[in-house]
Protein backbone atom coordinates (compact mmCIF):
# COMPACT_ATOMS: atom_id res chain seq x y z
CA UNK A 1 0.00 0.00 0.00
CA UNK A 2 1.21 3.44 -0.89
CA UNK A 3 3.40 5.44 1.42
CA UNK A 4 0.82 8.19 1.77
CA UNK A 5 -1.14 6.02 4.18
CA UNK A 6 0.83 6.91 7.31
CA UNK A 7 2.32 10.16 8.57
CA UNK A 8 6.10 10.30 8.59
CA UNK A 9 8.04 9.72 11.80
CA UNK A 10 7.90 12.78 13.99
CA UNK A 11 11.58 13.09 14.77
CA UNK A 12 14.72 11.64 13.36
CA UNK A 13 16.62 9.39 15.69
CA UNK A 14 20.30 8.62 15.27
CA UNK A 15 20.80 4.94 14.54
CA UNK A 16 22.68 3.17 17.30
CA UNK A 17 26.32 2.42 16.45
CA UNK A 18 25.94 -1.28 17.03
CA UNK A 19 22.50 -1.56 15.41
CA UNK A 20 23.81 -3.98 12.80
CA UNK A 21 25.26 -6.36 15.38
CA UNK A 22 22.10 -6.18 17.48
CA UNK A 23 20.03 -7.13 14.43
CA UNK A 24 22.25 -10.11 13.74
CA UNK A 25 21.96 -11.12 17.40
CA UNK A 26 18.14 -10.98 17.06
CA UNK A 27 18.29 -13.23 14.01
CA UNK A 28 20.62 -15.70 15.75
CA UNK A 29 18.32 -15.88 18.77
CA UNK A 30 15.31 -16.45 16.53
CA UNK A 31 17.08 -19.23 14.65
CA UNK A 32 18.23 -20.97 17.85
CA UNK A 33 14.69 -20.68 19.21
CA UNK A 34 13.31 -22.34 16.07
CA UNK A 35 15.88 -25.15 16.30
CA UNK A 36 15.04 -25.82 19.95
CA UNK A 37 11.28 -25.23 19.64
CA UNK A 38 10.23 -28.83 18.77
CA UNK A 39 11.62 -29.96 22.13
CA UNK A 40 8.91 -27.92 23.84
CA UNK A 41 6.07 -27.56 21.34
CA UNK A 42 4.13 -29.96 19.13
CA UNK A 43 6.26 -30.31 15.94
CA UNK A 44 3.29 -30.54 13.54
CA UNK A 45 1.97 -27.26 14.92
CA UNK A 46 5.39 -25.66 14.43
CA UNK A 47 5.62 -26.95 10.87
CA UNK A 48 2.17 -25.55 10.11
CA UNK A 49 3.32 -22.25 11.54
CA UNK A 50 6.47 -22.20 9.39
CA UNK A 51 4.50 -23.02 6.23
CA UNK A 52 2.05 -20.20 6.88
CA UNK A 53 4.87 -17.83 7.81
CA UNK A 54 6.53 -18.50 4.44
CA UNK A 55 3.15 -18.13 2.72
CA UNK A 56 2.57 -14.74 4.37
CA UNK A 57 6.12 -13.58 3.63
CA UNK A 58 5.65 -14.51 -0.04
CA UNK A 59 2.32 -12.70 -0.11
CA UNK A 60 3.91 -9.63 1.46
CA UNK A 61 6.45 -9.58 -1.36
CA UNK A 62 3.55 -8.47 -3.52
CA UNK A 63 1.55 -6.31 -1.10
CA UNK A 64 4.35 -4.74 0.90
CA UNK A 65 6.97 -4.23 -1.75
CA UNK A 66 4.94 -3.81 -4.92
CA UNK A 67 1.72 -2.38 -3.48
CA UNK A 68 -0.51 -4.96 -5.17
CA UNK A 69 -3.24 -6.48 -2.98
CA UNK A 70 -3.97 -9.97 -4.26
CA UNK A 71 -7.15 -11.57 -2.97
CA UNK A 72 -6.38 -14.82 -4.76
CA UNK A 73 -3.25 -16.23 -3.22
CA UNK A 74 -5.08 -19.34 -2.01
CA UNK A 75 -4.94 -20.48 -5.64
CA UNK A 76 -1.16 -20.78 -5.49
CA UNK A 77 -1.05 -22.19 -1.97
CA UNK A 78 -3.78 -24.79 -2.44
CA UNK A 79 -2.94 -25.39 -6.10
CA UNK A 80 0.67 -26.25 -5.26
CA UNK A 81 -0.53 -28.52 -2.45
CA UNK A 82 -2.64 -30.44 -4.99
CA UNK A 83 0.19 -30.66 -7.54
CA UNK A 84 2.72 -31.88 -4.98
CA UNK A 85 0.31 -34.34 -3.38
CA UNK A 86 -0.74 -35.76 -6.75
CA UNK A 87 2.83 -36.10 -8.04
CA UNK A 88 4.08 -37.79 -4.88
CA UNK A 89 1.11 -40.06 -4.30
CA UNK A 90 -0.12 -41.03 -7.78
CA UNK A 91 3.04 -40.70 -9.86
CA UNK A 92 5.36 -41.82 -7.04
CA UNK A 93 7.71 -38.85 -7.42
CA UNK A 94 10.31 -38.06 -4.75
CA UNK A 95 9.36 -35.26 -2.30
CA UNK A 96 11.81 -32.72 -3.76
CA UNK A 97 10.50 -33.33 -7.29
CA UNK A 98 6.93 -33.07 -6.02
CA UNK A 99 7.62 -29.75 -4.31
CA UNK A 100 9.39 -28.48 -7.42
CA UNK A 101 6.30 -29.34 -9.46
CA UNK A 102 4.19 -27.46 -6.90
CA UNK A 103 6.42 -24.40 -7.23
CA UNK A 104 6.41 -24.49 -11.04
CA UNK A 105 2.65 -25.11 -11.16
CA UNK A 106 2.00 -22.20 -8.83
CA UNK A 107 4.31 -20.00 -10.91
CA UNK A 108 2.41 -20.97 -14.08
CA UNK A 109 -0.93 -20.18 -12.42
CA UNK A 110 0.60 -16.91 -11.23
CA UNK A 111 1.67 -16.06 -14.76
CA UNK A 112 -1.86 -16.52 -16.08
CA UNK A 113 -3.65 -14.79 -13.19
CA UNK A 114 -1.08 -12.00 -13.07
CA UNK A 115 -1.22 -11.35 -16.81
CA UNK A 116 -4.98 -10.83 -16.61
CA UNK A 117 -5.12 -8.97 -13.29
CA UNK A 118 -2.38 -6.38 -13.89
CA UNK A 119 -4.52 -4.90 -16.61
CA UNK A 120 -6.36 -3.04 -13.84
CA UNK A 121 -5.01 -1.33 -10.73
CA UNK A 122 -5.79 -0.92 -7.06
CA UNK A 123 -9.18 -2.10 -5.97
CA UNK A 124 -9.97 -3.71 -9.32
CA UNK A 125 -6.79 -5.76 -9.06
CA UNK A 126 -8.01 -7.18 -5.74
CA UNK A 127 -11.46 -8.00 -7.14
CA UNK A 128 -10.08 -9.63 -10.27
CA UNK A 129 -7.66 -11.86 -8.38
CA UNK A 130 -10.52 -12.84 -6.05
CA UNK A 131 -12.80 -13.73 -8.96
CA UNK A 132 -10.09 -15.71 -10.77
CA UNK A 133 -9.22 -17.65 -7.65
CA UNK A 134 -12.90 -18.46 -7.12
CA UNK A 135 -12.85 -19.81 -10.67
CA UNK A 136 -9.88 -22.01 -9.75
CA UNK A 137 -11.81 -23.16 -6.66
CA UNK A 138 -14.71 -24.34 -8.85
CA UNK A 139 -12.21 -26.03 -11.14
CA UNK A 140 -10.73 -27.93 -8.17
CA UNK A 141 -14.22 -28.82 -6.97
CA UNK A 142 -14.99 -30.53 -10.28
CA UNK A 143 -11.62 -31.77 -11.57
CA UNK A 144 -11.05 -35.48 -11.13
CA UNK A 145 -7.47 -35.48 -9.81
CA UNK A 146 -8.37 -33.36 -6.76
CA UNK A 147 -11.05 -35.86 -5.60
CA UNK A 148 -13.51 -33.04 -4.90
CA UNK A 149 -14.66 -32.79 -1.30
CA UNK A 150 -12.45 -35.69 -0.16
CA UNK A 151 -9.19 -34.14 -1.30
CA UNK A 152 -5.98 -36.11 -1.84
CA UNK A 153 -5.41 -38.09 1.34
CA UNK A 154 -2.59 -40.13 2.90
CA UNK A 155 0.16 -38.60 0.79
CA UNK A 156 3.47 -40.36 1.55
CA UNK A 157 6.31 -38.07 2.68
CA UNK A 158 8.89 -40.34 1.08
CA UNK A 159 12.65 -40.01 1.15
CA UNK A 160 14.35 -36.70 0.40
CA UNK A 161 16.95 -37.18 -2.39
CA UNK A 162 16.29 -40.90 -1.94
CA UNK A 163 18.12 -41.08 1.40
CA UNK A 164 16.61 -38.90 4.14
CA UNK A 165 13.43 -40.42 5.55
CA UNK A 166 10.89 -37.62 5.97
CA UNK A 167 8.48 -39.99 7.69
CA UNK A 168 10.31 -39.17 10.91
CA UNK A 169 8.70 -36.11 12.47
CA UNK A 170 11.90 -34.45 13.69
CA UNK A 171 13.62 -34.96 10.33
CA UNK A 172 10.57 -33.46 8.63
CA UNK A 173 10.69 -30.52 11.01
CA UNK A 174 14.28 -29.68 10.14
CA UNK A 175 13.51 -30.07 6.45
CA UNK A 176 10.61 -27.60 6.77
CA UNK A 177 12.80 -25.22 8.80
CA UNK A 178 15.49 -25.35 6.09
CA UNK A 179 12.94 -24.62 3.36
CA UNK A 180 11.57 -21.76 5.44
CA UNK A 181 14.99 -20.18 5.97
CA UNK A 182 15.90 -20.56 2.29
CA UNK A 183 12.54 -19.07 1.30
CA UNK A 184 13.05 -16.04 3.52
CA UNK A 185 16.61 -15.59 2.23
CA UNK A 186 15.29 -15.60 -1.34
CA UNK A 187 12.71 -12.97 -0.41
CA UNK A 188 15.31 -10.83 1.38
CA UNK A 189 17.67 -11.05 -1.59
CA UNK A 190 14.85 -10.30 -4.03
CA UNK A 191 13.62 -7.26 -2.12
CA UNK A 192 17.12 -5.80 -1.88
CA UNK A 193 18.02 -6.47 -5.51
CA UNK A 194 17.82 -3.83 -8.25
CA UNK A 195 14.60 -5.57 -9.31
CA UNK A 196 13.16 -5.03 -5.83
CA UNK A 197 14.19 -1.36 -5.90
CA UNK A 198 12.33 -0.86 -9.17
CA UNK A 199 9.26 -2.52 -7.65
CA UNK A 200 9.36 -0.07 -4.74
CA UNK A 201 9.68 2.84 -7.14
CA UNK A 202 6.62 1.57 -9.04
CA UNK A 203 4.71 1.37 -5.77
CA UNK A 204 5.68 4.91 -4.81
CA UNK A 205 5.07 6.54 -8.17
CA UNK A 206 4.04 4.44 -11.11
CA UNK A 207 3.90 7.32 -13.61
CA UNK A 208 7.45 8.35 -12.73
CA UNK A 209 8.71 4.80 -13.12
CA UNK A 210 7.10 4.65 -16.58
CA UNK A 211 8.66 7.97 -17.56
CA UNK A 212 12.05 6.63 -16.49
CA UNK A 213 11.61 3.96 -19.13
CA UNK A 214 10.73 0.95 -17.00
CA UNK A 215 8.22 -1.50 -18.41
CA UNK A 216 5.99 -1.38 -15.35
CA UNK A 217 3.67 -4.23 -16.31
CA UNK A 218 6.57 -6.59 -16.82
CA UNK A 219 8.00 -5.83 -13.38
CA UNK A 220 4.61 -6.23 -11.75
CA UNK A 221 4.09 -9.53 -13.51
CA UNK A 222 7.58 -10.65 -12.46
CA UNK A 223 6.80 -9.84 -8.83
CA UNK A 224 3.45 -11.62 -9.09
CA UNK A 225 5.00 -14.80 -10.48
CA UNK A 226 7.79 -14.69 -7.90
CA UNK A 227 5.27 -14.32 -5.08
CA UNK A 228 3.12 -17.12 -6.53
CA UNK A 229 6.12 -19.45 -6.83
CA UNK A 230 7.21 -18.89 -3.22
CA UNK A 231 3.61 -19.34 -2.09
CA UNK A 232 3.67 -22.60 -4.04
CA UNK A 233 6.78 -23.64 -2.12
CA UNK A 234 4.90 -23.13 1.15
CA UNK A 235 1.82 -24.96 -0.18
CA UNK A 236 3.78 -27.94 -1.50
CA UNK A 237 5.64 -28.38 1.78
CA UNK A 238 2.38 -28.07 3.72
CA UNK A 239 0.87 -30.91 1.67
CA UNK A 240 3.77 -33.13 2.76
CA UNK A 241 3.56 -32.03 6.40
CA UNK A 242 -0.13 -32.85 6.76
CA UNK A 243 -0.02 -35.58 4.11
CA UNK A 244 -3.17 -34.30 2.43
CA UNK A 245 -4.38 -31.57 0.10
CA UNK A 246 -7.96 -30.34 0.35
CA UNK A 247 -10.35 -27.71 -0.95
CA UNK A 248 -9.86 -25.62 2.22
CA UNK A 249 -6.52 -24.39 0.88
CA UNK A 250 -8.01 -22.96 -2.32
CA UNK A 251 -10.97 -21.11 -0.78
CA UNK A 252 -11.20 -17.33 -0.64
CA UNK A 253 -11.17 -17.61 3.17
CA UNK A 254 -7.57 -18.81 2.87
CA UNK A 255 -6.71 -15.77 0.74
CA UNK A 256 -8.28 -13.61 3.44
CA UNK A 257 -6.33 -15.37 6.17
CA UNK A 258 -2.97 -14.61 4.61
CA UNK A 259 -3.95 -10.97 4.21
CA UNK A 260 -4.81 -10.89 7.91
CA UNK A 261 -1.46 -12.44 8.86
CA UNK A 262 0.41 -9.82 6.86
CA UNK A 263 -1.70 -6.92 8.07
CA UNK A 264 -1.51 -8.00 11.71
CA UNK A 265 2.26 -8.50 11.60
CA UNK A 266 3.16 -5.48 9.53
CA UNK A 267 2.92 -4.84 5.79
CA UNK A 268 6.25 -4.14 4.14
CA UNK A 269 8.46 -5.66 6.82
CA UNK A 270 10.29 -8.96 6.50
CA UNK A 271 9.55 -10.09 10.05
CA UNK A 272 5.96 -8.84 10.16
CA UNK A 273 4.23 -11.58 8.14
CA UNK A 274 6.20 -14.22 10.05
CA UNK A 275 4.98 -12.85 13.38
CA UNK A 276 1.48 -12.33 12.03
CA UNK A 277 1.31 -15.92 10.78
CA UNK A 278 2.54 -17.16 14.14
CA UNK A 279 -0.14 -15.18 15.97
CA UNK A 280 -3.01 -16.17 13.67
CA UNK A 281 -2.09 -19.88 13.63
CA UNK A 282 -1.70 -19.90 17.44
CA UNK A 283 -4.99 -18.08 17.86
CA UNK A 284 -6.79 -20.54 15.56
CA UNK A 285 -5.30 -23.46 17.44
CA UNK A 286 -6.46 -21.94 20.70
CA UNK A 287 -9.95 -21.11 19.45
CA UNK A 288 -10.42 -24.53 17.85
CA UNK A 289 -10.80 -26.05 21.32
CA UNK A 290 -12.99 -23.24 22.68
CA UNK A 291 -16.61 -22.37 21.99
CA UNK A 292 -15.87 -19.06 20.27
CA UNK A 293 -16.15 -19.24 16.46
CA UNK A 294 -12.93 -18.41 14.62
CA UNK A 295 -14.65 -16.37 11.89
CA UNK A 296 -16.02 -13.78 14.29
CA UNK A 297 -12.65 -13.25 15.96
CA UNK A 298 -10.89 -13.12 12.58
CA UNK A 299 -13.36 -10.53 11.35
CA UNK A 300 -13.02 -8.39 14.47
CA UNK A 301 -9.21 -8.55 14.41
CA UNK A 302 -9.36 -7.42 10.78
CA UNK A 303 -11.55 -4.43 11.64
CA UNK A 304 -9.42 -3.41 14.62
CA UNK A 305 -6.19 -3.72 12.63
CA UNK A 306 -7.50 -1.56 9.78
CA UNK A 307 -8.99 1.05 12.11
CA UNK A 308 -6.33 1.31 14.79
CA UNK A 309 -2.96 -0.06 13.86
CA UNK A 310 -2.40 -0.31 10.18
CA UNK A 311 1.34 -0.61 10.62
CA UNK A 312 0.89 -4.00 12.29
CA UNK A 313 2.67 -5.22 15.41
CA UNK A 314 6.17 -5.33 13.96
CA UNK A 315 5.57 -2.09 12.08
CA UNK A 316 4.48 -0.37 15.31
CA UNK A 317 7.63 -1.59 17.03
CA UNK A 318 9.77 -0.31 14.17
CA UNK A 319 8.09 3.07 14.53
CA UNK A 320 8.91 3.39 18.22
CA UNK A 321 12.01 5.30 19.28
CA UNK A 322 13.78 2.06 20.20
CA UNK A 323 12.88 0.52 16.84
CA UNK A 324 14.16 3.52 14.93
CA UNK A 325 17.31 3.65 17.03
CA UNK A 326 18.05 0.11 15.92
CA UNK A 327 17.66 1.23 12.32
CA UNK A 328 14.49 -0.75 11.58
CA UNK A 329 12.03 0.65 9.13
CA UNK A 330 8.94 -0.52 7.31
CA UNK A 331 8.97 -0.39 3.56
CA UNK A 332 5.39 0.82 3.36
Amino acid sequence: MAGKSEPAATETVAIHAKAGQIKIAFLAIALVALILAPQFLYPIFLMKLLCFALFAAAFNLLLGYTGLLSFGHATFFGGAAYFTAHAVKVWGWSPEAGILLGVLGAAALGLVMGAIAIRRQGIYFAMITLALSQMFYFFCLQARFTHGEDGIQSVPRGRLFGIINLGDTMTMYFFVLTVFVIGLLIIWRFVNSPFGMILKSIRENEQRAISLGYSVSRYKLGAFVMSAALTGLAGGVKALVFQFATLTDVTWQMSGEVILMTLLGGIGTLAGPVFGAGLVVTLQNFLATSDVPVTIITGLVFMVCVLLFRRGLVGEFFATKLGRKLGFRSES
Partner: protein
Amino acid sequence: MIFGVPVQALMGQLLVGLINGSFYALLSLGLAVIFGLLRVINFAHGAQYMLGAFVALLLLTVGGVNYWFALILAPLFVGLFGAIVERTMLSRLYKLDHLYGLLFTFGLALAIEGTFRYFFGASGKPYAAPAQLTGAVNLGFMFLPIYRGWVVIASLIVCFAVWFMIEKTRLGAYLRAATENPVLVQSFGINVPLLLTLTYALGAGLAAFAGVLAAPVYQVSPLMGTNLIIIVFAVVVVGGMGSILGAIVTGYMLGVVEGLTKVFYPEASNIVIFVIMAIVLILRPAGLFGKDA
Protein backbone atom coordinates in the same frame (compact mmCIF):
# COMPACT_ATOMS: atom_id res chain seq x y z
CA MET B 1 -36.63 -27.88 -29.98
CA ILE B 2 -33.98 -25.19 -30.33
CA PHE B 3 -30.40 -26.39 -31.02
CA GLY B 4 -31.44 -29.83 -29.80
CA VAL B 5 -32.71 -28.50 -26.48
CA PRO B 6 -36.41 -28.72 -25.52
CA VAL B 7 -38.05 -25.29 -25.46
CA GLN B 8 -39.31 -25.85 -21.92
CA ALA B 9 -35.85 -26.56 -20.53
CA LEU B 10 -34.44 -23.57 -22.40
CA MET B 11 -37.15 -21.23 -21.15
CA GLY B 12 -36.85 -22.64 -17.64
CA GLN B 13 -33.13 -21.95 -17.46
CA LEU B 14 -33.62 -18.58 -19.12
CA LEU B 15 -36.00 -17.70 -16.29
CA VAL B 16 -33.54 -18.95 -13.66
CA GLY B 17 -30.90 -16.84 -15.36
CA LEU B 18 -33.16 -13.81 -15.36
CA ILE B 19 -33.82 -14.26 -11.62
CA ASN B 20 -30.13 -14.64 -10.79
CA GLY B 21 -29.57 -11.65 -13.05
CA SER B 22 -32.07 -9.65 -11.00
CA PHE B 23 -30.00 -10.24 -7.89
CA TYR B 24 -26.73 -9.55 -9.70
CA ALA B 25 -28.21 -6.29 -10.98
CA LEU B 26 -29.52 -5.13 -7.59
CA LEU B 27 -26.28 -6.01 -5.82
CA SER B 28 -23.90 -4.61 -8.42
CA LEU B 29 -26.04 -1.46 -8.53
CA GLY B 30 -25.56 -1.02 -4.77
CA LEU B 31 -21.83 -1.67 -5.08
CA ALA B 32 -21.54 0.83 -7.91
CA VAL B 33 -23.48 3.52 -6.02
CA ILE B 34 -21.30 3.10 -2.92
CA PHE B 35 -18.07 2.95 -4.91
CA GLY B 36 -19.03 5.96 -6.99
CA LEU B 37 -19.12 8.29 -4.00
CA LEU B 38 -17.18 6.60 -1.20
CA ARG B 39 -14.50 4.92 -3.34
CA VAL B 40 -14.98 1.88 -1.12
CA ILE B 41 -15.59 -1.60 -2.44
CA ASN B 42 -18.19 -2.85 -0.03
CA PHE B 43 -17.15 -6.42 0.71
CA ALA B 44 -19.89 -6.57 3.34
CA HIS B 45 -22.50 -6.29 0.57
CA GLY B 46 -23.12 -10.04 0.62
CA ALA B 47 -23.46 -9.98 4.40
CA GLN B 48 -25.96 -7.11 4.17
CA TYR B 49 -27.95 -9.09 1.60
CA MET B 50 -27.99 -12.00 4.06
CA LEU B 51 -29.00 -9.62 6.87
CA GLY B 52 -31.98 -8.48 4.81
CA ALA B 53 -33.19 -12.05 4.39
CA PHE B 54 -32.66 -12.80 8.08
CA VAL B 55 -34.46 -9.66 9.23
CA ALA B 56 -37.43 -10.73 7.08
CA LEU B 57 -37.31 -14.24 8.55
CA LEU B 58 -37.07 -12.98 12.14
CA LEU B 59 -39.82 -10.41 11.59
CA LEU B 60 -42.07 -13.23 10.41
CA THR B 61 -41.21 -15.85 13.03
CA VAL B 62 -40.78 -13.59 16.05
CA GLY B 63 -42.94 -10.57 15.29
CA GLY B 64 -45.46 -12.10 12.90
CA VAL B 65 -44.76 -9.29 10.41
CA ASN B 66 -45.64 -10.34 6.88
CA TYR B 67 -43.57 -10.27 3.67
CA TRP B 68 -44.83 -6.94 2.36
CA PHE B 69 -43.88 -5.03 5.49
CA ALA B 70 -40.59 -6.91 5.66
CA LEU B 71 -39.84 -5.75 2.13
CA ILE B 72 -39.90 -2.17 3.49
CA LEU B 73 -38.67 -2.69 7.05
CA ALA B 74 -35.66 -4.93 6.37
CA PRO B 75 -33.95 -2.44 4.00
CA LEU B 76 -34.60 0.31 6.58
CA PHE B 77 -33.06 -1.72 9.42
CA VAL B 78 -30.04 -2.75 7.38
CA GLY B 79 -29.71 0.76 5.98
CA LEU B 80 -29.64 2.13 9.53
CA PHE B 81 -27.06 -0.46 10.48
CA GLY B 82 -25.01 0.58 7.45
CA ALA B 83 -25.31 4.25 8.42
CA ILE B 84 -24.01 3.50 11.92
CA VAL B 85 -21.08 1.50 10.55
CA GLU B 86 -20.24 4.26 8.08
CA ARG B 87 -20.47 7.03 10.68
CA THR B 88 -18.51 5.34 13.43
CA MET B 89 -15.87 3.38 11.53
CA LEU B 90 -15.79 3.44 7.74
CA SER B 91 -15.65 7.25 7.54
CA ARG B 92 -12.25 7.19 9.27
CA LEU B 93 -10.72 5.39 6.31
CA TYR B 94 -11.59 7.74 3.43
CA LYS B 95 -8.28 9.56 3.54
CA LEU B 96 -6.28 6.35 3.31
CA ASP B 97 -5.52 4.04 0.43
CA HIS B 98 -8.83 2.65 -0.91
CA LEU B 99 -7.66 -0.88 -0.21
CA TYR B 100 -8.20 -0.31 3.53
CA GLY B 101 -11.92 0.18 2.90
CA LEU B 102 -12.02 -3.18 1.15
CA LEU B 103 -10.13 -4.85 4.00
CA PHE B 104 -12.33 -3.27 6.65
CA THR B 105 -15.58 -4.33 5.01
CA PHE B 106 -14.09 -7.80 4.46
CA GLY B 107 -13.54 -8.07 8.23
CA LEU B 108 -17.05 -6.74 8.82
CA ALA B 109 -18.50 -9.39 6.50
CA LEU B 110 -16.62 -12.16 8.33
CA ALA B 111 -17.78 -10.90 11.72
CA ILE B 112 -21.46 -10.60 10.67
CA GLU B 113 -21.57 -13.96 8.93
CA GLY B 114 -19.68 -15.66 11.75
CA THR B 115 -22.15 -14.27 14.29
CA PHE B 116 -25.19 -15.48 12.38
CA ARG B 117 -23.61 -18.85 11.83
CA TYR B 118 -22.94 -19.11 15.55
CA PHE B 119 -26.55 -18.37 16.52
CA PHE B 120 -28.49 -19.90 13.64
CA GLY B 121 -26.26 -22.70 12.32
CA ALA B 122 -25.10 -23.08 8.74
CA SER B 123 -28.20 -24.80 7.35
CA GLY B 124 -30.80 -22.94 5.33
CA LYS B 125 -34.24 -22.06 6.65
CA PRO B 126 -37.31 -21.90 4.42
CA TYR B 127 -39.27 -18.67 4.04
CA ALA B 128 -42.69 -19.06 2.44
CA ALA B 129 -43.67 -16.73 -0.38
CA PRO B 130 -46.72 -14.56 0.46
CA ALA B 131 -50.08 -16.13 -0.40
CA GLN B 132 -50.78 -13.51 -3.09
CA LEU B 133 -47.72 -14.63 -5.06
CA THR B 134 -47.91 -18.41 -4.84
CA GLY B 135 -48.97 -20.60 -7.72
CA ALA B 136 -48.07 -20.41 -11.38
CA VAL B 137 -49.50 -19.14 -14.65
CA ASN B 138 -49.46 -21.04 -17.92
CA LEU B 139 -47.77 -18.95 -20.59
CA GLY B 140 -48.47 -21.51 -23.31
CA PHE B 141 -44.83 -22.57 -23.77
CA MET B 142 -44.06 -22.91 -20.04
CA PHE B 143 -45.41 -22.52 -16.50
CA LEU B 144 -44.24 -19.35 -14.80
CA PRO B 145 -44.22 -19.45 -10.99
CA ILE B 146 -45.78 -16.13 -10.01
CA TYR B 147 -43.22 -15.36 -7.31
CA ARG B 148 -40.35 -15.67 -9.77
CA GLY B 149 -42.05 -13.33 -12.17
CA TRP B 150 -42.51 -10.89 -9.27
CA VAL B 151 -38.79 -11.02 -8.44
CA VAL B 152 -37.87 -9.94 -11.96
CA ILE B 153 -40.47 -7.16 -12.04
CA ALA B 154 -39.67 -5.87 -8.53
CA SER B 155 -35.95 -5.72 -9.20
CA LEU B 156 -36.52 -3.94 -12.52
CA ILE B 157 -38.70 -1.35 -10.79
CA VAL B 158 -36.18 -0.74 -7.99
CA CYS B 159 -33.25 -0.57 -10.40
CA PHE B 160 -35.14 1.95 -12.49
CA ALA B 161 -36.09 3.97 -9.41
CA VAL B 162 -32.48 4.18 -8.22
CA TRP B 163 -31.29 5.10 -11.69
CA PHE B 164 -33.98 7.79 -11.89
CA MET B 165 -33.11 9.15 -8.46
CA ILE B 166 -29.42 9.44 -9.29
CA GLU B 167 -29.68 10.70 -12.85
CA LYS B 168 -32.82 12.85 -12.76
CA THR B 169 -33.41 14.32 -9.30
CA ARG B 170 -31.80 17.15 -7.37
CA LEU B 171 -30.48 14.82 -4.66
CA GLY B 172 -28.98 12.68 -7.40
CA ALA B 173 -27.36 15.75 -8.90
CA TYR B 174 -25.72 16.50 -5.53
CA LEU B 175 -24.51 12.91 -5.40
CA ARG B 176 -23.04 13.06 -8.87
CA ALA B 177 -21.44 16.40 -8.18
CA ALA B 178 -19.92 15.11 -4.92
CA THR B 179 -18.52 12.16 -6.86
CA GLU B 180 -16.76 14.56 -9.22
CA ASN B 181 -15.51 17.07 -6.66
CA PRO B 182 -16.48 16.68 -2.99
CA VAL B 183 -14.55 19.73 -1.79
CA LEU B 184 -16.29 22.09 -4.21
CA VAL B 185 -19.72 20.65 -3.43
CA GLN B 186 -19.09 21.09 0.29
CA SER B 187 -18.07 24.69 -0.25
CA PHE B 188 -21.52 25.30 -1.79
CA GLY B 189 -22.99 24.47 1.62
CA ILE B 190 -24.01 20.89 0.95
CA ASN B 191 -23.38 18.46 3.79
CA VAL B 192 -21.11 15.99 2.01
CA PRO B 193 -20.40 13.73 5.04
CA LEU B 194 -24.17 13.27 5.44
CA LEU B 195 -24.41 12.51 1.75
CA LEU B 196 -21.75 9.82 2.16
CA THR B 197 -23.61 8.24 5.09
CA LEU B 198 -26.89 8.25 3.18
CA THR B 199 -25.21 6.71 0.15
CA TYR B 200 -23.77 3.86 2.17
CA ALA B 201 -27.15 3.33 3.85
CA LEU B 202 -28.82 3.30 0.42
CA GLY B 203 -26.38 0.68 -0.86
CA ALA B 204 -26.83 -1.49 2.23
CA GLY B 205 -30.61 -1.07 1.98
CA LEU B 206 -30.57 -2.18 -1.66
CA ALA B 207 -28.64 -5.29 -0.67
CA ALA B 208 -31.18 -6.00 2.07
CA PHE B 209 -34.05 -5.52 -0.39
CA ALA B 210 -32.44 -8.11 -2.66
CA GLY B 211 -32.09 -10.36 0.38
CA VAL B 212 -35.80 -10.19 1.21
CA LEU B 213 -36.67 -10.86 -2.44
CA ALA B 214 -34.34 -13.85 -2.41
CA ALA B 215 -35.62 -15.35 0.85
CA PRO B 216 -38.50 -17.36 -0.70
CA VAL B 217 -36.44 -18.34 -3.78
CA TYR B 218 -33.31 -19.60 -2.04
CA GLN B 219 -33.27 -20.59 1.59
CA VAL B 220 -32.27 -18.13 4.28
CA SER B 221 -28.80 -19.08 5.49
CA PRO B 222 -25.85 -17.19 7.01
CA LEU B 223 -23.67 -18.03 4.02
CA MET B 224 -26.14 -17.12 1.26
CA GLY B 225 -24.30 -13.91 0.42
CA THR B 226 -20.72 -15.14 0.56
CA ASN B 227 -20.32 -16.80 -2.79
CA LEU B 228 -22.79 -14.46 -4.43
CA ILE B 229 -20.70 -11.39 -3.65
CA ILE B 230 -17.66 -12.78 -5.46
CA ILE B 231 -19.75 -13.33 -8.60
CA VAL B 232 -21.10 -9.80 -8.23
CA PHE B 233 -17.51 -8.51 -8.07
CA ALA B 234 -16.88 -10.19 -11.41
CA VAL B 235 -20.09 -8.63 -12.77
CA VAL B 236 -18.89 -5.23 -11.61
CA VAL B 237 -15.49 -5.73 -13.25
CA VAL B 238 -17.20 -6.73 -16.52
CA GLY B 239 -19.56 -3.75 -16.46
CA GLY B 240 -17.06 -1.22 -15.22
CA MET B 241 -18.12 0.77 -12.19
CA GLY B 242 -18.35 4.07 -14.03
CA SER B 243 -22.01 3.82 -14.89
CA ILE B 244 -25.18 2.98 -12.94
CA LEU B 245 -27.00 1.79 -16.02
CA GLY B 246 -23.99 -0.31 -16.98
CA ALA B 247 -24.09 -2.15 -13.66
CA ILE B 248 -27.79 -2.95 -14.08
CA VAL B 249 -27.57 -4.09 -17.71
CA THR B 250 -24.46 -6.22 -17.07
CA GLY B 251 -26.16 -7.86 -14.08
CA TYR B 252 -29.17 -9.07 -16.09
CA MET B 253 -27.04 -9.97 -19.09
CA LEU B 254 -24.60 -12.16 -17.18
CA GLY B 255 -27.45 -13.82 -15.28
CA VAL B 256 -29.03 -14.85 -18.58
CA VAL B 257 -25.69 -16.00 -20.02
CA GLU B 258 -25.16 -18.13 -16.92
CA GLY B 259 -28.64 -19.62 -17.31
CA LEU B 260 -28.01 -20.47 -20.97
CA THR B 261 -24.69 -22.08 -20.08
CA LYS B 262 -26.57 -24.39 -17.73
CA VAL B 263 -28.55 -25.62 -20.74
CA PHE B 264 -25.76 -26.05 -23.24
CA TYR B 265 -22.69 -26.85 -21.14
CA PRO B 266 -23.66 -27.38 -17.47
CA GLU B 267 -20.10 -28.14 -16.28
CA ALA B 268 -19.05 -24.57 -17.06
CA SER B 269 -22.05 -22.79 -15.53
CA ASN B 270 -20.17 -22.11 -12.27
CA ILE B 271 -17.28 -20.39 -13.96
CA VAL B 272 -18.76 -18.82 -17.10
CA ILE B 273 -19.02 -15.36 -15.51
CA PHE B 274 -15.37 -15.48 -14.43
CA VAL B 275 -14.33 -16.58 -17.92
CA ILE B 276 -16.28 -13.69 -19.43
CA MET B 277 -14.58 -11.37 -16.95
CA ALA B 278 -11.13 -12.59 -18.05
CA ILE B 279 -12.01 -12.16 -21.74
CA VAL B 280 -13.41 -8.66 -21.19
CA LEU B 281 -10.26 -7.70 -19.27
CA ILE B 282 -8.07 -8.86 -22.12
CA LEU B 283 -10.11 -7.14 -24.84
CA ARG B 284 -11.41 -4.07 -23.04
CA PRO B 285 -9.70 -3.55 -19.66
CA ALA B 286 -11.98 -0.67 -18.61
CA GLY B 287 -15.05 -2.92 -18.73
CA LEU B 288 -18.00 -2.80 -21.12
CA PHE B 289 -19.41 0.46 -19.75
CA GLY B 290 -16.31 1.79 -17.98
CA LYS B 291 -14.96 5.24 -18.64
CA ASP B 292 -11.50 5.08 -17.09
CA ALA B 293 -8.76 2.84 -18.39
